[in-house]
């Protein structure tokens, strides 16, 4: 068991998402930065989809009731175990009774806002509709279908002794994407792109869009040049995905994120490609993001880059584990 000692707010149990229940009205949920969750699991020898804790607000601390191997990936949140500093993106072990504390992320080396705590074997909450992710609107999945609170005890299995110590270079450093000095994500135009004025289309690709404080796991509300359509748009309700950039009447876009409802009716000017959702999921409130237009093939190549990075990480970990065994 690990006990939550200090949960400021909104930390949730997440895996890579709940797929296949859209026909019940159930959205995907899952880690805002799936690369970091997968990497933490790879370091621990878990399945990439094992559940971890997504931590967006700091400080956050847990007490280990069981000896557990763990990782902290995602944001560079200074962490300590009973006062001893820990490296991020590195394999660690906690003995029963030790307390782990994470504090506000630093952006000296890479800019990110969410940390992931993964444990060997994964957070052992029940699988609901094919996933361990928290479904906040439906109040199921994760830990009792809600964000974590102080005093919650999460089920984990005890880990065997750790005889290796190694880490990974974060994808934020290995796969950077910057446009004119501003962190960027790639976007494919969506159904209503052609219904926007040329000024609006131009603004979409050139504006540094500010992520306002009204941004969370449901969606990011952006501030920038208002995007106006050439004529009023009335749409029928249809399925949408995380990454869709909707434009309500005011002209300030909203990007739907992992907890967004899986259908909607606002006009869509574009969609952040699936391969770049992890970058967006880490973008801090108050920071800016650029949209870079891409083609279908470029978007699939970007997904292949992520797959390649994860494959490389698995190989490194497998090699290291073999060396430790041989030694």
């Amino acid at each position: 068991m690990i006990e939550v000692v200090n949960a400021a707010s909104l930390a949730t149990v997440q895996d890579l998402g709940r797929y296949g229940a859209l026909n019940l009205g159930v959205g995907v949920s899952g880690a805002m930065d799936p690369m970091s969750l997968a990497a933490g699991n790879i370091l621990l020898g878990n399945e990439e989809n094992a559940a971890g804790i997504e931590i967006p607000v700091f400080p956050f601390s847990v007490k280990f009731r069981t000896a557990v191997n763990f990782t902290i990936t995602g944001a560079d949140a200074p962490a300590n175990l009973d006062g001893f500093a820990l490296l991020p993106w590195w394999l660690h072990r906690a003995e029963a009774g030790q307390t782990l504390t994470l504090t506000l992320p630093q952006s000296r080396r890479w800019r990110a806002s969410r940390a992931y705590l993964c444990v060997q074997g994964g957070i052992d909450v029940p699988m609901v509709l094919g996933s361990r992710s928290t479904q906040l609107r439906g109040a199921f999945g994760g830990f009792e279908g809600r964000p974590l609170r102080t005093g919650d005890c999460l089920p984990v299995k005890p880990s065997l002794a750790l005889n290796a110590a190694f880490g990974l270079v974060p994808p934020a450093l290995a796969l950077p994407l910057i446009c004119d000095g501003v962190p960027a994500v790639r976007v494919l135009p969506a159904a209503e792109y052609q219904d926007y004025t040329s000024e609006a289309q131009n603004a979409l690709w050139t504006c540094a869009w500010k992520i306002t404080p009204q941004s969370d796991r449901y969606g990011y509300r952006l501030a920038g040049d208002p995007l106006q359509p050439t004529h009023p748009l009335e749409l029928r309700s249809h399925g949408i995905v995380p990454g869709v950039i909707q434009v309500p009447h005011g002209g300030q876009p909203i990007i739907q994120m992992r907890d967004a409802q899986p259908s909607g009716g606002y006009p869509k000017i574009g969609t952040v490609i699936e391969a770049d959702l992890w970058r967006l999921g880490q973008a801090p409130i108050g920071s800016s993001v650029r949209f870079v237009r891409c083609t279908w093939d470029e978007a699939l190549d970007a997904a292949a880059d992520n797959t390649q990075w994860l494959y490389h990480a698995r190989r490194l970990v497998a090699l290291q584990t073999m060396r430790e065994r041989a030694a």
Partner: protein
Amino acid sequence: MSEPRPRLSLLGTSALLFEAPGETDHETQAMIWALSKEVQSWDGVREAVPGMNNLMINFSVPPRALERWEARLQDTWRTIKPLPLQGRLIEIPVIYGGEGGPHIDDVIAHTGLSIDEIVTIHSAPIYPVYALGSHPGYCYLGGMDARIATPRRKVPVLKIPGGAVSIGGNQTGVSASDGPSGWNTIGTTKMEFFNVERDSPALLAPGDSVKFVVQEVRR
């Protein structure tokens, strides 16, 4: 003369959106259901999700040869036969007005009808379930009488309770759980639309129908 073609558009690399041309109607929806069933079996498709006369096709593996894939979809649509789903009819008892229907006065003001007329008109039809979406267990219903159509609220309500029966534009629906909404709430029901503990968690499925039964009118 060729018929207007359905519109295809990308939702990133996650999905493709297929939108049928023409007015929203039941015949087209039956074709969407048929297309959904067909496409669900295609390689690389994770889930085909009907909307209101449209279909979102979510990829497990997005196809490299997108144009060939789109052409296959258009060909399939041209030859598909409607799938007339005949589901169950579920009666939903509703308390109209009062505390559970805080926006009924706005519907009265907009339509110029009395509360009794609104209740009679709203509870008269058998509403077909076209699709599920929005949140777990929520149904998009067809067939609301245009006389009680009321525009969405200018300022959305941050939290309306599960069971809220509401009107948004020319659609009506029932919230399955607490959440934000821009629709006008005219009544409330105790019916449970989603329970993850059940074998089939959602009470309703496309092809089912809903009849609102007047339990009480609170003036």
